[in-house]
């Protein structure tokens, strides 16, 4: 269900994004850092859905707050002549990896559980068959 929503969002975004007007190159560095922040928020959201502690308010404030904060930090960094956006990138990408690890583990566990159950069922059925054969004999 959640994957369908992500897929539809991505496709719509791509279509509209391609046809969107150009933005000056000057703002591209701010936009890039905002993209990293938003990506981190989305992964965080997916993780929280998996962990079943998803909070809409936290997700939305995180999504926009992180993006705006990272843009402001980048502007500040340019004013101070310090590359603060590097710190933002390190934090966001690091978090993205942890979130991704959680998601991966969840699905790997899920699939391996399914596999185990299937095997157990097959074993049971085989046992039943053998028992039936024994009885009939």
């Amino acid at each position, binding site marked *: *269900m*959640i994957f*369908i*929503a*992500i897929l*539809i*969002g*991505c496709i*719509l*975004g*791509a279509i*509209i*994004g*391609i046809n*969107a007007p*150009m*933005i000056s*190159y000057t703002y*591209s560095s701010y*936009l*890039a850092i*905002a*993209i990293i922040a*938003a*990506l981190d*928020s*989305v992964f965080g*959201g*997916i993780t929280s*859905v998996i962990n079943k502690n*998803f909070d*809409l308010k936290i*997700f*939305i404030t995180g*999504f926009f707050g992180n993006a705006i904060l990272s843009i402001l930090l980048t502007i500040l960094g340019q004013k101070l002549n310090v590359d603060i956006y590097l710190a933002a990138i390190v934090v966001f990408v690091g978090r993205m990896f942890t979130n991704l690890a959680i998601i991966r583990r969840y699905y790997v566990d899920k699939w391996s559980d399914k596999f185990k159950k299937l095997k157990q069922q097959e074993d049971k059925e085989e046992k039943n068959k053998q028992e039936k054969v024994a009885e009939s004999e």
Partner: protein
Amino acid sequence: MTITIGIACFVLVLVMFMQFKIVNETDITSIENMRETELRTELANWKSRYDDTNAQYEEVQSTIEEYKKTKESNEETEKLVDDELATVNMNLGKTDVEGEGIIVTLRETDNEEISQINADDLLVIVNALKLAGAEAISINDERIINMTDIVNIDANTDNLFVRINGQRILAPYIIKAIGNQSYLESALVGKGGYVDELRTIGHDVTIEKKDKMTILKYDDEITTKYIQ
């Protein structure tokens, strides 16, 4: 919940594609889009290049200055040589010349008993004019130069004519001479003057003083074959 994440994805991908477009379509090498450090290195590059070019320019400038100097001295020499050439040509008779002088006109009489005016008479007159300081002489617009021949052709027959510079000259003979008018005139007239002699024989000789007249140049090439 899922809708919110979908919308978040939508916004994220929208912004991402906008960014892709910017990065794709922007010419990073153009000056407007360069970062400060890039601009700084570029500026340094250009500055060093400018210095190099400036040095080169100065070098070339000094070379040009040198050439100019040489050219000026060359021009001076050229001018001198030109002046020299002009005077030599004038002296040689290769140019038209102007100045004060006299025009002597010799007309032959129809009287059969009087001998015709011939090259000898002309030679005597020319010599007299030269003695009197004539600077340029011409007979019937044939310029007298150093190699000029004044000779009689068919001297023993009746149809005698005079040849000057290889050209056949017919009467009346108009001798133009540039020089001091009174000197030239006095060389021809007066006691012992050749014009007087011709007059006494019976030829019609007139002398005309001119304040300004032109003597034409020698027309042919002056060729030398044996002078080494």
